[in-house]
């Protein structure tokens, strides 16, 4: 599944980051690496962009780019979205 499929308040772990090179590089530099935990905090009122919490930073990207980020959903998620928002993965 991709990050665009994650519902607001849910956590996931990044599996792979795709997209155009310059943008992808910036995401990697911000620490969106495979194994990193990410929370989809909310969706903007007009459905796009989405707000993410990664490594303690709130980031906003559009759905089209979120769809290029492959994630695995965490099952124990929804209870407290902020609690595990920036847990560091092995990556």
């Amino acid at each position, binding site marked *: 599944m991709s990050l665009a499929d994650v519902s607001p308040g849910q956590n996931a772990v990044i599996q792979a*980051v795709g*997209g*155009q*090179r*310059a*943008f*992808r*590089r*910036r*995401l*990697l*530099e*911000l*620490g969106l*690496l*495979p194994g990193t935990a990410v929370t989809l*905090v*909310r969706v*903007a*009122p*007009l*459905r*796009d*962009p989405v*707000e993410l*919490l990664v*490594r*303690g*930073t*709130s*980031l*906003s*990207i*559009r759905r*089209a*780019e979120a769809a290029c980020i492959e994630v695995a959903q965490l099952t124990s998620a929804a209870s407290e979205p*902020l*609690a595990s*928002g*920036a*847990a*560091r993965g092995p*990556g």
Partner: protein
Amino acid sequence: MNEPRSPALSEPPSAAPIVLLVGSPNVGKSSLFNALTGGHARVGNYPGITVERLSGQARVPTNTGARSVRVTDVPGTHSLAARSRDERVALDSILGANGEPQPALVVCVVDATQLGRSSYLLLSVAELGVPLVVAVNMIDEARDAPPDVAELERALGVPCVVTDARRGRGVDALRATIARGLEDPRRCDLEIDYPPALVADREELRQHLPEPWRGDDRRERALALWALASLDEDDELDDAPRALREAAIRVRARHADRDLDREIATGRWAAIERLVSRVTRRDDPHPQKRRGTERADRLLLHPVWGFAIFVALMLALFQSLFSWSEPAIQLIESGVSALQGALRAALPAGLVRDFASEGVVGGVGNVIVFLPQILLLFLLLGLLEDSGYMARVAYLMDRVMRSLGLHGRAFVPMLSGFACAVPAILATRTMERQRDRTLTMLVIPLMTCSARLPVYTLIIAALLPPGEVLGLSVAPLALTSMYVLSMVVSLAAAGILGRTVVRGRRMPLLLELPPYRVPQPRAVLRMTWRRTMSFVREAGTTILACTVVLWALLTFPRSETAPVVAAAVPAAAAAAAAPAPATGAREPAAAPAIERTWGGKLGKALEPALEPLGFDWRIGVGLIGAFAAREVFVSTMALVYGLDEVDDEALPLRERLRLERRPDGTPRYRALTGISLMVFFAFAAQCMSTLATVRRETGGWRWPAFMLGYMTTLAWVASFLVYQVGTSLGF
């Protein structure tokens, strides 16, 4: 030890050493800059691009007293990798390359509450092996889990100091550390483990580094890695060495199976994680400020309430821009008029007097009349930025603005364009990319600014038939139509220009939503003042020069038989109204004087081009005068008709325009002429101040020339269609 390191690029040895302030966005770098320099700074530009560069003097202690250093603030960035000149500013500044002066010391600012996030840049700078000092800022907000700075110092091998720039704490310690760093420069010795394959690629690229990039091992390795990350087939770094780019492309192509960007980022992040776990018990991923911010965002980004608050805030911003600046504008205008009157009374009649009062005082007036709105807009923008709300504006508006090819942050500048294009264009600086700024600047002048109102009012009252259309009175209907037309056309223009002229690469949105903070009034006021003054210096001189040129156009050659008389200066027209350059109205008998000036001749020469739009040479002269500021059209038309009294209502002029007859007895100006003229004013770039501001903001005449060209063409074609189609339909 203030000898600059690279003799080739150094400042003279006597100059104060340069201390560079670098850091990720939102780490409090600007606060630290203000604390170090006392807020006294020069706003400059990096050569060739329009990224703002702040620098100021700071005093640091020495054994014998104190010495001056020049602190330069580098725009916030997460990494040194770059694909455009804008993004390479940080690297150029650190290396003293591409025309940047060689810094003696780099101070890297990190966020104590988010050491991980802000350390990516720290490690990238450290890899370059430049003399380094680390300021661990916002230490007050990291009370729960303060980082162990002594341990950080051991890990990095460079001096580290904790600061709380917003409250001014730790700033003296930082000064002392800077002094120490200048005396005894330390370079970071932290090694980052990259996979062996990546190390091999790096060594290969290192062989292709051009001579000026060479240096010690550390620097060469870091620059080779930079090239691997930054250069490819379609980067926008035109001046990057060709051999290096080709080598980077070659290496990348050879390893299609590997993910080089990920290898670099992973290597650095692994080092960051080791570093962070060494100096903090836990890198609190969601410190206190994040929780407060999260609560606020639940309301401020709410699908319904968030939007309602946003609309209310924007309306308040727009309203205050209009109404709060109005009294100040009136005051400036009456001051300028009074000064002009005094000059006329004091000096003997003649060219000197006219030049002094109309050219010089009028020109200065044309500049300072913008200050109330500029100050106010910068103040409001500063508050929006400093509080963290501006990022939310972009978040909320991205969906709408994107469909027009505009950046989410273009919303506030475009809204401000309804007051005045000049402050609105200056406000485009809230956007990072030059392409987004340029596109927004190009369409802002299409917004119905307040200077068009007196023109529309005159035309509607003089030429449009009174009465009602479909039950609505004509005047408000016409005015509303002009606003709607301007909005529709500016958005369409953004869509078209964004896909053609300023196409650029489509850059996906990557927006950080920083924690909310209480804005710092002093910092906001300082920034407001600095930016306003840089407008006065850089755009003001152009506006002054243009005013003098326009004055000369409408004055020379002087007519012997037409003595210039002291006359009423047009009263304040509307917000953003500027005193006319050629305001001294002549006596009725001398009316044709203007006809014999160069401006008059130009108007006549333009007549063939204006006739298909329904205009004659008189309107042509009015259009020339309107270049000073659109509302000057009214006073210039009064000059053309030799009317010496122009008040807010311009009643005599209205009568005159309505009653003007052609030789054959038909009205010279019809209702259709009025509509055509309003359409022309809606689209034409009739404002030298706007063009001067665009020149200042884009760093050249290319974009203002394009703006003048496309808007004039648009205005001509639109007016042509209105007049010709209207005429053929029998209006």
